[in-house]
């Protein structure tokens, strides 16, 4: 018989591996959760003064065309983040529950290492909700940031990116009334806009997919700050490759969403009553699009978009017309279809001129016309040049007025 004590000893040993789960344990209050990041461009001269030597050594006579970014991060202060609406708000607001820090660096990771140097607890990006680029940074290309973010396992693809009109830093410092934490306010801004049909779903993951796709360009929500620290979605910024080219107005987000296949409508349009200057406000409730492709003479690609709108009339400004006969309704429907069609065509042509295929027409050609794609396109650059110079897009719109509200006539 073996001594039972030996068994006991060995069974203790068996449990040792189970304890290895504690290796990575890190209490919530010991980590610095970064909720939002803002990235600005800074003047090298100014940055050099601030920079410290953390991830690289300073060299004498560094080249003068060095790039610097300013990273502003919003870090949740453990224990002070209010858990519900009652606890939040009140005194202090934003500055209380979050801590805003700003550092400079050559690249995103460089800046983050600099930031870590200033924060005692390890930075944690698992709760990162939004990354704001200033317009200038976005127009110089975001690919260099994407590399870090793709590699970094903590950042979620469901977080958001946005482009700001002002300095991105401001977005980390605003003190909104509705939400005690600015970064959460920003991300719920864009998420609610998606819910209301005013913005296509465009989280980081979706944006990256659009950047990678051979026949598509990306876009990001374009934000601006109002007078009372309120943030507005001021349209979307469209990209060519990884560089932002320009912005489109909110009114055109509707058409963009239609073509992208998002059905929920949210935007209204003032439509002229036939034959008069009077207007009715028509609001889209649902839109469906059907995209067909063709290749003309084995040369020219063609996209045909069929769109069906379900709309409701929300306001009738006309003193003379009343909405009481089916003919009038039909006329408004036709009128609306026509206006919308013109708007779409104008919009698409503008985008073609800019060389930014945010609609993803190229993906349709790649998927549906593989022979043509293999022969003539193949690369992103090639598609872009075909998109700007050869692609022919035709739009067809059908409208149904389904509701006119509680008022008769």
């Amino acid at each position: 018989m073996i001594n039972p004590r030996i068994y006991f000893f060995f069974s203790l040993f068996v449990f040792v591996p189970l304890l290895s789960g504690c290796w990575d344990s890190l209490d919530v209050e010991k980590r610095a959760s970064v909720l939002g990041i803002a990235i600005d461009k800074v003047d090298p001269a100014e940055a050099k003064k601030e920079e410290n030597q953390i991830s690289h050594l300073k060299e004498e006579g560094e080249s003068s065309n060095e790039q610097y970014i300013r990273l502003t991060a919003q870090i949740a202060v453990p224990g002070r983040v209010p858990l519900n609406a009652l606890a939040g708000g009140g005194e202090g607001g934003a500055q209380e529950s979050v801590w805003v820090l700003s550092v400079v660096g050559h690249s995103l990771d460089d800046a983050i290492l600099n930031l870590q140097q200033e924060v005692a607890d390890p930075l944690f990006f698992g709760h990162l909700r939004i990354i704001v680029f200033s317009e200038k940074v976005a127009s110089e290309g975001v690919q260099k940031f994407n590399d870090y973010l793709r590699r970094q396992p903590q950042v979620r693809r469901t977080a958001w990116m946005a482009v700001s009109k002002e300095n991105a830093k401001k977005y980390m410092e605003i003190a909104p009334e509705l939400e005690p934490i600015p970064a959460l306010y920003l991300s719920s801004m864009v998420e609610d806009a998606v819910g209301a049909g005013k913005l296509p779903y465009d989280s980081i993951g979706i944006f990256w997919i659009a950047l990678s796709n051979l026949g598509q360009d990306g876009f990001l929500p374009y934000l601006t700050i109002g007078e009372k620290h309120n943030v507005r979605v001021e349209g979307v910024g469209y990209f060519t490759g990884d560089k932002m080219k320009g912005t489109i107005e909110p009114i055109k987000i509707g058409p963009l969403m239609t073509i992208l296949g998002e059905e929920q409508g949210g935007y209204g349009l003032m439509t002229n009553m036939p034959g008069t200057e009077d207007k009715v406000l028509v609001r889209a409730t649902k839109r469906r699009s059907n995209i067909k492709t063709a290749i003309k003479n084995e040369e020219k690609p063609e996209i045909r978009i069929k769109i069906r709108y379900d709309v409701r009339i929300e306001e009738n400004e006309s003193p003379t017309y009343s909405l009481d006969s089916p003919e009038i309704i039909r006329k408004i429907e036709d009128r609306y279809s026509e206006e919308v069609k013109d708007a779409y065509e104008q919009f698409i042509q503008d985008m073609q001129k800019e060389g930014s295929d945010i609609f993803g027409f190229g993906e349709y050609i790649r998927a549906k016309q593989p022979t043509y794609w293999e022969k003539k396109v193949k690369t992103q650059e090639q598609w872009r040049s075909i998109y700007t110079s050869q692609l022919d897009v035709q739009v067809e719109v059908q409208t149904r007025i389904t509701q006119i509200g509680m008022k008769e006539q």
Partner: protein
Amino acid sequence: MSNSREITAVEAAAILINSVLGIGILNMPRFMVEAAGTGAPIVTIIGVLFVFISVWGITKLGMSFPTQSIVQYSERIIGKWLGRAYIFIAIIVFIFAAGLLLREFSEVLNTAVLFETPIEVSALVILFLAAYFTRDSLNTFAYIHLFYAPFIFIPGIIIAALSIPKYNYLYLQPLFRVEVNEWFTGITSMAPMFQGVFVLTIIIPFMKQPGLVMKASFWGTALAGGVYVITVISALAIAGPEELKTMMWPALEHARSVEVPGNFLERLGIVFLITWVIAVFTTIFSYYMIIVNVLRQLFRTQDHRMFSFFLFPLIFGVAMIPENVVQLYKGEMAKIVNWMGVMFLMGFPLLLVIVMKLRGLPLKGSGKKSD
């Protein structure tokens, strides 16, 4: 041989599923898309069909000699020394395959979840568990697999189903535009993930009704292959071919971005990781069990337990050879092991069947003794 034949057909199918579904699921979509672009699902399906041929061969052999081990019948078919040499090579290949699998597992854990835990520790823990359980009999082995199979299978299906509304069907087109060489690369890069089918050789002698083996191996392969196909389809339909190529472990990224409608459950990635840890455990366990049992048969001993901890340092040592993840996936060792695995574990049984035919040995014989 005095086997207690207790493994049922369902257990056999579960063992097969668990041995095949494992680490490969994480990066398999990338391999397939790199090989065939949007044609990846088709290539995957064809690949699974090829696996079926190998499974058919292994099962046929097993059914022809229902009471013998692979060591015995391969010696019988191709001669004593050739047979032994084959078994010896197969064992070496399996030790390397198990080591690489182990390394892949701890590499993923270390990169994606447990940043501080050294890879040696996570590897040691899971290998220790597997080694400990290989000391049990094959019947216990079957019970463990039967118990875990639903935990691997069902969450995988749920995650795939939840992502269907987000599919972009453009990313699945064009489906049939695949060149011949793309078929080839696709199939060769997925075949190593199915090496686990070799487990059939050790469980057939223990099956209650050897007549049901074919059925069990068909369903096991079909279900495991189905999970692979579904994973490829849903990862591709969500990320698109170009973005998918930028991901190291597309299935993991995919699971992490799945959301339950209603926003009441977030971060499903964790659920996926848990099931995936189980899947990896069962695969390593199977590989380990195969090595241990085939060794026992080779040395004609009654007890397989002595091999369990003897193998431990070997497998662990192999796991620690690659320096980083690039070497692990693209290094020479991985290439050689994968090729040898496909040739000796999946191809060679077919050769044995052919030799049997040529020598006029009776093929099949469901349940009856052939010698």
